[in-house]
């Protein structure tokens, strides 16, 4: 019996790749290139990126979770990680490696946003370049995206164990 090429698991994996991949790419792009977008000449571009990463560092620092060196590390590494991870998940290369990494990061975002919400911290989430307050809507958004990431990862592993008949090696 052959299964349909578009079963529930595969639809979730596709939606997860598309939604989370695009969101991660945009989130990384926004942190590096927004709000300051003066791009030319090169020293202006360099200053724009330095300013944007510095603004992001201020937002990371506001969560009061990391020491100064940790804030600087996250502010400078996370945006580039988000872009690379988003691209890898979007194209679907080695999904069983990159989907769990993306899910772990997404769950981390959810945990810190939930903590800030429960502690009534009056801060911006720092998710994208535009100021966004941490409210119930933001917590629910992160919860939904974490759920999607989790499902995508679980289904990616299940699919690997039960490959589609069209792509499975033929039995002798």
């Amino acid at each position, binding site marked *: 019996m052959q299964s349909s090429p578009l079963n529930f698991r595969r639809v979730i994996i596709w939606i997860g790749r598309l939604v989370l991949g695009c969101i991660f790419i945009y989130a990384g792009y926004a942190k590096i290139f927004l*709000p300051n977008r003066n791009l030319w000449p090169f*020293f202006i571009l360099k200053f*724009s990126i*330095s*300013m944007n990463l510095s603004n992001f560092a*201020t937002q990371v620092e506001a969560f009061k979770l990391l020491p100064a060196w940790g804030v600087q590390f996250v502010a400078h590494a996370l945006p580039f990680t988000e872009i690379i991870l988003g691209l890898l998940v979007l194209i679907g290369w080695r999904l069983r490696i990159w989907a769990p990494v993306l899910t772990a990061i997404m769950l981390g975002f959810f945990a810190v946003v939930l903590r800030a919400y429960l502690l009534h911290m009056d801060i911006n989430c720092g998710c994208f370049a535009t100021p966004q307050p941490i409210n119930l809507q933001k917590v629910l958004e992160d919860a939904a995206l974490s759920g999607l990431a989790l499902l995508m990862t679980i289904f990616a592993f299940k699919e690997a164990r039960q490959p589609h008949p069209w792509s499975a090696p033929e039995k002798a």
Partner: protein
Amino acid sequence: MPAVPARETSAAWQPAALESVDGVNDVDPHKAFGSKSAPIVVEVFSDFQCPACKTLFLTTNRQLMDNYVTTGKVYLIHRDFPLPMHAYSRVAARYARAAAEIGKIELVEKTLFENQEKWEQSGDVDGTLAAVLSAADMAKIRALVKGGTLEPLIEKDVALGQMYRVNQTPTSVFHSKGQTYPYSGVMPYDTLHQFLDQLLSQK
């Protein structure tokens, strides 16, 4: 380093005439620092109740004043951009404007930013400033604040900020050799220092 000396206040007091400096219009000389012939003009759109503005003022801008403004390389203009989300920032802006008119802008800006956490809870801008200014100065400032002539000047700064598409504070707008570069956020001094030196070395 106030560019313009204090003026006596009177019943017929009128705001200082706004000037144009190196293509930048509506400059209140009482709220600007440095030499008007400086090669770089920087406008800082700021809100006295914004924590990031406090950080910029207490860290980067102090070094900017010492190393670039007093040496004639940068002409620094303070612009009011009170955000609607901050309950007392407009009141603080009025007091700072009034203080600028009597030559006390530096002390008042410093006091407002350093005591931001105190007055943003109570809204007691007046009391915060009364603790550091003389009774005579406070009387002049209160008269100017009550006079209602400062509000159009604040509105003018806000309108100018909107023209530059300022949507958060602090935003610094750099003018050099006919080019304009707006930047939002708190810039670390080391980064700013490199940027200004590059602007100065541009031909």
